């Protein structure tokens, strides 16, 4: 006897193609022109912020930095699909999400200077800070989603993980928990094709990363991660469903993994060149321009405003004075004697002179 007990299918969705043509059948009816302009401007902002952070790092004014270049649509589309009370749980490259969710810019720059003080993500923005160990944030997202349902807040959690992150145990465990508990949990797989130097093809034999959700009994879709409208729409629908869901955003890491590596060692230029026409920003610019919603003056004006805001944030961040006491003061809810003694010793011995 042979019975088919499971049948799976993953859809791929693109709404605006690389030339800026919208698919009328798929285009969301309730998506306003204003919202698309807003998302476009936010993508420009994210790219400008990224360029600034890269430049500061190269000048020795920031520590190791993970650029987002090329991944603007995935980050901005998903972030702007969230409501204010929905909670974002990023990995380490989602600066665009922080930006769109109104994390104060100077905090980001303080973080890039290498201080925890930059990870003080205000409770009011409803998100968690940068998490470095790959995929370890995904179970947190499930736990946070559990708390939303437990308390009936109506909020959903949108978490982020990379293509490499889908190989980690925590990825599977979190999906499995979210499935069993039927949580309001949306996982964005930001598939930028490279996990440092290891390509997507060496990460898994699975045809898509989205299909990994199926084993956990969770719905999933693959979208063109360079199409901000497709990402936006998929995320919005998933949040509204209040159930666990996985969205694989197919995008490309146009730049480095971080400022500590050199991609010419492991990937060829032809591959990078092939992705350039698929740029997430140029297609929306073409779309908006054709509709008469955007022009060069507006572009210049947006760039100027954003540069001003970025410069102001950098200035504020560079004025930030670290307090070495703070590395002791935020370990426990109280200061244990043994730790207090180490703090007193460090202070009285004067070891901290010249620390900055």
């Amino acid at each position, binding site marked *: 006897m042979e019975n088919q007990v499971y049948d799976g299918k993953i859809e791929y969705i693109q709404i605006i193609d690389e030339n800026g043509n919208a698919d009328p059948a798929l285009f969301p009816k309730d998506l306003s022109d204003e919202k698309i302009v807003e998302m476009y401007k936010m993508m420009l902002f994210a790219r400008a912020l990224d360029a600034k952070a890269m430049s500061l790092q190269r000048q020795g004014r920031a520590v190791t930095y993970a650029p987002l270049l090329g991944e603007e649509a995935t980050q901005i589309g998903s972030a702007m699909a969230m409501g204010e009370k929905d*909670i974002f749980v990023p990995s380490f490259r989602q600066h665009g999400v922080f930006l769109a969710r109104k994390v104060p810019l100077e905090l980001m720059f303080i973080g890039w200077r290498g201080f925890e003080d930059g990870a003080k993500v205000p409770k009011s923005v409803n998100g968690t800070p940068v998490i470095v*160990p790959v995929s370890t944030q995904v179970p947190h997202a499930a*736990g946070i989603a559990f708390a939303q349902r437990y308390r009936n807040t109506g909020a959903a959690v949108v978490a982020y993980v990379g293509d490499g992150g889908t190989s980690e145990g*925590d990825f599977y465990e979190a999906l499995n928990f979210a499935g069993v508990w039927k949580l309001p949990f949306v996982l964005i797989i930001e598939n930028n094709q490279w996990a440092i130097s290891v390509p997507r093809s060496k990460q898994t034999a699975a045809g898509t990363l989205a299909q990994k959700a199926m084993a956990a009994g969770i719905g999933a879709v693959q979208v063109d991660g360079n199409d901000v409208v497709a990402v936006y729409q998929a995320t919005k629908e998933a949040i509204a469903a209040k159930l666990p869901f996985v969205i694989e955003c197919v995008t490309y890491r146009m730049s480095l993994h971080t400022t500590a590596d050199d991609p010419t060692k492991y990937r060829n230029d032809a591959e990078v060149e092939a992705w350039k026409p698929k740029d997430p920003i140029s297609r929306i610019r073409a779309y908006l321009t054709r509709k008469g919603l955007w022009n060069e003056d507006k572009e210049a004006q947006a760039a100027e405003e954003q540069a001003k805001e970025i410069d102001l944030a950098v200035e504020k961040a560079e004025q930030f004075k670290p307090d070495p006491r703070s590395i002791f003061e935020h370990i426990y809810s109280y200061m244990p004697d*043994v730790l207090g003694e180490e703090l007193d010793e460090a202070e009285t011995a004067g070891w901290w002179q010249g620390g900055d």
Partner: protein
Amino acid sequence: MMVNMVSALNNALELIMKENENVVLLGEDIGRDGGVFRVTEGLIDKFGERRVLDTPLAESGIIGTSIGMALAGMHPIAEIQFAGFMYLGFSQMVNHASRYRARTRSTFSVPMIVRTPVSGGVRTLEHHSDSPEAYYSHIGGLIVVEPSNPYDAKGLLIKASRMNDPVVFLEPTKLYRLFKQEIPEEMYEVPIGKASILSEGNDLTVITYGTMVRIVQDVVKKKGLSADVIDLRTINPLDEKTIIESAKKTGRVAIVHEASLSFGAGAEIAARIAEKAIFELKAPIVRVGSPSLPYPFPGYENYYIPNDLKISKALDRLMSA
């Protein structure tokens, strides 16, 4: 009420859940089965599946989701079935539970308890008898407690549930049902970070905790020694003050734990005494632990765990030096 440690913990959990609606219990087999040691027995009937969760079999998932709940303002109490299985969640303990508060400069905190049975002596299978307190203490940022009797078990758990910190709560398997003790029915706290002086004497200090406490007490009594017997109760942060004061008073110190000797908690305690009281010592510090090797299969455990003979010889050495 006259109870063993299992009942004391069960009673504490019930009171904690009544007190704080944000507390949920999660772990493997803790619902219908009441946990493999029955610590959560009956709680699912009292609080329902909403608050007593049988989780999938995944320790990193249990600890990782607990961290998420804590970040969102809940106070989860996770049970990891055995200490040896908790290593699967070690990354979450090291990378997040211990440092989320520091990472965010107290914008976030991780109020949670991870309970797990520790140590051996009850002929269980491999990986069911580890004594992992030093691992969790070395990280910094985690509170590590280990009660040695029903009274402390209840009071420490209640205290932990009222703290805004991640607490690793180690429960010696051997002591779960070994003896009963009269404890109050109502809520009470046993302080965290404070050792308990079980008996006072003038000739030596024995510092111990967990499974070794009763054995040490018996040996001291049998030998008729006048000893300060100190039960740490909290491994990290260490109650250094109590330790140093006693060491200075008696001048002779033995440290006894079931965990293997090398790099164990005893090394930390000995080092602190050496730094702060060495000139007041009359004899070298003596450490007693299991051999410096992984916990063997149950057939060999009686050759591994420190017994009364080993402790007795160590105290002879200390007193004759």
